[in-house]
């Protein structure tokens, strides 16, 4: 993107501490991030990592302990939730059970005192958008989970919020529906042009839908970047492990710098860039994705690596290599399925640029 990016949300040095009578829980520690306008931004992390807390701070349901949050350059920390031009799609949808679908969706517009014809027009418009127009007179308890989800989405979109906050909205749906909704959400975001802030613990969801992802763990932001960036070059062990599969190979550094050299305990040498703070003979952890490792046939006297597990997956296979204390997972492409079997001695190769020193 070449055009200048507009900051939709700026989170600056935000800390959130929950205090109860005798304990103090630090849910967020000094979080900083910027979400651009028109962006599909995902907060990704394991449960209890603070991602929902951050979302609730933006929505205004929680009081901030320290720091500030700006919405389009306006400080919003001191505004109550009903004064913030953001809307939330809740995890359990939280539709109003005593109101029908139409009234649920019109709820926000009515509170904003829009006139009746505008309310009606906009309500039908968003119901159309989520394909729930035919259900306008139903009560929430007469809808399936997926339908409730759509209504919740319509309800949050109706008042045309500047930012839409989504708190694990797909987690209550079954797998097929969840996958279908991913595309719908992404399409919806592109069509409406509204900034989406999406909270999830599902890395696949995050990778398929997001423009950018912030990985959060234990109240701290680990990495912010585009899905590719996060997957290909994770900034630390946690990110590498949490997103996709990861191998951590142990060894020591022989030369550092751009064209560094490391030797693994398995006896292999890898050419890769080694950060300058790692000195010669320092221990290193090298990260590589299972699908990037190439394996070739070998024999017992040449290699100490043997296939200890072979898991057939239909369109591929995963194998586990064992050598002394090191376990290496490798994804086997479909054309190699017949070539290898359990117990074979093999050798491994690391294509250039596939491995990375992570620790």
């Amino acid at each position, binding site marked *: 993107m070449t055009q200048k990016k507009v900051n939709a949300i700026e989170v600056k040095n935000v800390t959130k501490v929950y205090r109860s009578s005798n304990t103090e829980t630090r849910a967020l520690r000094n979080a900083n991030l910027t979400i651009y306008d028109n962006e599909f931004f995902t907060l990704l992390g394991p449960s209890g990592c603070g991602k929902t807390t951050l979302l609730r701070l933006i929505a205004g349901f929680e009081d901030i302990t320290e720091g500030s949050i700006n919405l389009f350059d306006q400080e919003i920390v001191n505004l109550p939730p009903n004064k913030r031009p953001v*809307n939330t799609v809740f995890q359990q949808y939280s539709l109003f*059970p005593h109101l029908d679908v139409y009234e649920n969706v019109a709820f926000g517009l009515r*509170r904003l005192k829009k006139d009746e014809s505008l309310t009606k027009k906009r309500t039908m418009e968003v119901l159309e958008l989520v394909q729930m127009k035919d259900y306008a007179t139903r009560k929430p308890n*007469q809808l399936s989970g997926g339908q409730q989800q759509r209504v919740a989405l319509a309800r949050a979109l109706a*008042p045309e919020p500047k930012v839409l906050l989504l708190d694990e909205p797909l987690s209550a749906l079954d797998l097929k529906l969840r996958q279908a909704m991913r595309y719908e959400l992404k399409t919806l975001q592109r069509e409406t042009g509204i900034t989406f802030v999406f909270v999830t613990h599902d890395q696949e969801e995050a990778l398929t839908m997001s423009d950018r992802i912030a990985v959060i763990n234990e109240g701290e932001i680990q990495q912010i970047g585009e899905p590719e960036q996060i997957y290909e070059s994770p900034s630390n062990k946690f990110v590498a492990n949490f997103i996709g599969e990861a191998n951590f190979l142990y060894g020591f550094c022989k030369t550092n710098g751009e064209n560094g050299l490391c030797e693994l305990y398995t006896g292999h040498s890898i050419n890769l860039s080694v950060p300058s703070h790692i000195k010669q003979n320092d221990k290193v952890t090298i990260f590589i994705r299972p699908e990037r490792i190439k394996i070739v046939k070998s024999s017992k006297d040449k290699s100490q690596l043997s296939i200890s597990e072979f898991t057939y997956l239909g369109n591929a296979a995963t194998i586990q290599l064992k050598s002394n204390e090191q376990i290496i997972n490798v994804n086997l492409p479909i054309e190699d399925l017949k070539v290898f079997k359990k117990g074979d001695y093999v050798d491994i190769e690391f294509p250039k640029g596939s491995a990375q020193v992570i620790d």
Partner: protein
Amino acid sequence: MNIQGENKTQNRIYSLLPLWIVVGIFMIGPLLVMAVVSLMESNVYGGVHFKFSLSGYRQILFDTNLFDEIEFNPAYLIIIGRSFMLALVATFISLLIGFPAAYFISRQSNRVKNILIFLVTIPFWTNLLIRTFAWIIILGKGGVIESSFNFFGLLDEESSLNLMYTNSAILIGLVYSYLPLMVLPIYASMEKMDLRLLEAATDLYSNRIELIRKIILPLSMPGIIGGSILVFVPCLGAFIAPDLLGGGKKLLLGSLIQFQFSYARNWPFGAAMAMFLLALVILVLIFNARLNRKHREYASQK
């Protein structure tokens, strides 16, 4: 294998027999006695003549004058109307106090909640009569309120606020007596309410008042209706508060009925009034059931 034996229906009837006996003796029996008494002739020395008569019911609306002519007498209708109005107002005031109280309690932490609910039920532990007497001490001449007014110089020693023996005094007594019956059902329905709905409503630009009007009030409606019935029905037949705090100057339905049995020795008339009261209550309940059904239909129309 059929453990219950061949005849399940019979078993069910027999096993419920003790219940039927209890319900029959303690609930239906007295009602039937009352119904029979209401259809008898009165005996001036108490009790009844066992002779069928509708005079008890006739007396509610008509009176026999000096010339033995039957003429319309609105006195009792006025009493009924007054009782109805007082019960209605008492219910409304109880709602005004009980709703926020229940809301407040439901928003506390679990520990505080339990303590507060416990406090709400404490008045039931002592006799209503004694508790109502306490109000005489509070409201009466030289009572707690007047002496504190005196103390702060808002009232001179000679004059009185005349709080006792008024409709307001009766209302205070009624509201005091039955307020817990309003708080408890409303609390129960608020307790069940999903607090995330309040968050959702706030997120959708509701201010405090809209939150109450659009979300909390409709969702606690079952509790409000239940509590209102629990307060309204006993208020309609109450006689302790009206007698003690109202001084019996203005008769109410409950006092009137009690009076017929104790002093006036007109049992059939008292019984007829009681049956009339029962009919009123049943009407209110039917009205409520209709309302509830409509509410349910509305809630689950397919």
